[in-house]
Structure formats: structure tokens, C-alpha cells
């Protein structure tokens, strides 16, 4: 569960309604792969990831980023039950994909940077603080079923 005030929830949803999820998702995943290159280990089937340009323009990265961010958006609709919402995905990432949960935290922080880049002054320190709580909650929920 994420501890957000009513105002924070409204602010988070208010910003999210303006997010171009496909675009932001592709950019966030791309930046994760560029800034933290070890994360490419999970995407060896995606083709050319050899340079920043190749990553950011890779259609599979964009498609997968969009999928990931749509899932994040689902979480925003269920902030009071993130663990339940992400239970199946948590099991998948542990049992089938073998993803270190630290990567969820990295991606969460990259998403915050991307939102700041897209929304400028609108991404106030208070709004950032609310989103940091959300990304931490999502990362914890995704790690919750690990064993």
C-alpha cells in the first residue's frame, strides 16, 4: 500500500492523465538500458542495443516500454492494493524472467526523470515526492512474491 494523501493522489492522477504512455514508456525503458547497461541482459532478443541511438530508436524497446508503462498505469488505478495488482507479474519476473528486483527501483527512478523532462515546471518537488512513493510502492509490489 502506498501512503499518499488525497491531494497527492489527485496530483499523481492529474499528471498521469496527460502522459503519452506509449512514448514515455519507450523512453523510460530506453534510458534504463542506456544509463544502466547491465539491464540489457534481459533483452538480448531485441536486436541492436549497441549504442544510445540504437536503443532509443529500437522498435522492440519502444513496444516493450509501452507495455511496461501501461502496466504501471494499472497500478495507479489500484494504489490501495499494489501487491494484489502485481502478484502475477511478481511471480512471472521471479520464476520465469529471473529479474533482480533492484531493476524495478532503477526503472522507477528513470521514469521520474522522464516525467521531469516532459513536464518541466509542472513536475514540482511535491509531485516528484508523490511519484517517488508510487514507484517505490510498485517496485516493492513487484518484488513481493519473490522466493
Amino acid at each position: 500500500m502506498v501512503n499518499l494523501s488525497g491531494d497527492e493522489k489527485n496530483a499523481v492522477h492529474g499528471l498521469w492523465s496527460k502522459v503519452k504512455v506509449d512514448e514515455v514508456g519507450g523512453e523510460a525503458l530506453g534510458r534504463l538500458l542506456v544509463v544502466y547497461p547491465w539491464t540489457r541482459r534481459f533483452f538480448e532478443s531485441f536486436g541492436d542495443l549497441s549504442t544510445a541511438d540504437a536503443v532509443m530508436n529500437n522498435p522492440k524497446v519502444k513496444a516493450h516500454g509501452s507495455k511496461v508503462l501501461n502496466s504501471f498505469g494499472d497500478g495507479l488505478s489500484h494504489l490501495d492494493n499494489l501487491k494484489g495488482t502485481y502478484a502475477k507479474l511478481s511471480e512471472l519476473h521471479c520464476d520465469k524472467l529471473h529479474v533482480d528486483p533492484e531493476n524495478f527501483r532503477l526503472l522507477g527512478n528513470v521514469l521520474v526523470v522522464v516525467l521531469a523532462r516532459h513536464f518541466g515546471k509542472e513536475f514540482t518537488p511535491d509531485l516528484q515526492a508523490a511519484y517517488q512513493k508510487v514507484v517505490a510502492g510498485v517496485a516493492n509490489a513487484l518484488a513481493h512474491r519473490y522466493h
Partner: protein
Amino acid sequence: MVLAAEDQAAVRALWRKLGSNVHVYTTEALERTFLAFPSTKTYFHLSPRSAQVRAHGEKVAFALTVALDHLDDLPRALSALRVLHSHKLRLDPVNFKLLGDSLLVTLAQHYPGDFSSALQASLDKFLRHVISALAPSCR
């Protein structure tokens, strides 16, 4: 280990663009850190947007600029700050990273067109080098 030449060049180019305003962004980064990660406030007795936060923002700006000028010898260049933060202030080193992350958010917000993924990677590496020079080496 020294920062690669292309990363140095990218960070220096951004720093030239920031000019004399580095302290504006490091101060904002501090404010963002205190709001986003409230545990970081435990090291200060302050209110946000106070003169104390601005003063610390200026010190952080100065230290980062010094670091950029001494990338081949960061541990020596930052040794006094390392001793101060570890022995006197007894700061848990995890907090350096929280401030570093907020600085990336601040710069992304103010320079969206410049803040390519490659620049973000270079800045992240630069900040990790600085942080590793500031974290205590022996205890």
C-alpha cells in the same frame, strides 16, 4: 578508475551551459531530496527553501565543479569533504545517491532538450565517481 573521455566532455559541455547557475540547480536538487526522501532531513535542522538549504546548495555546486576539474584525482581533491561527511557529519553514504538522483531530475526538468539518454548516462557515471570518492574508504 577515471571517467571516460566522452563522458567528461558531455558533462563539461553541460556545465558550461549551466554557467554560474549550478548552485540554483543543486539547491533545487536538495529541496527535491528533502521532500522525496524525508529521512535525508534528519541531518539538517532546517525548513525547505531556507537560507541554510541555499547555502548548502552552493557548497554542493562548488564541490561538483571542483570534482569536474580534478577527475583524474578525485579521492585527493575531495578528501577533506570525505572526512567531513564521514567523521564529523556521520552521513550514511546512501544519501549521496539520493541527492545525485534528484540532481538528475532537476537537470532533466530544466534542460529537457539537452537531456539525452547519453547525457543522462554520462552524468550518472560522473556522480557515481564523485560519490565513490566521498564515501568513507576505511572505518
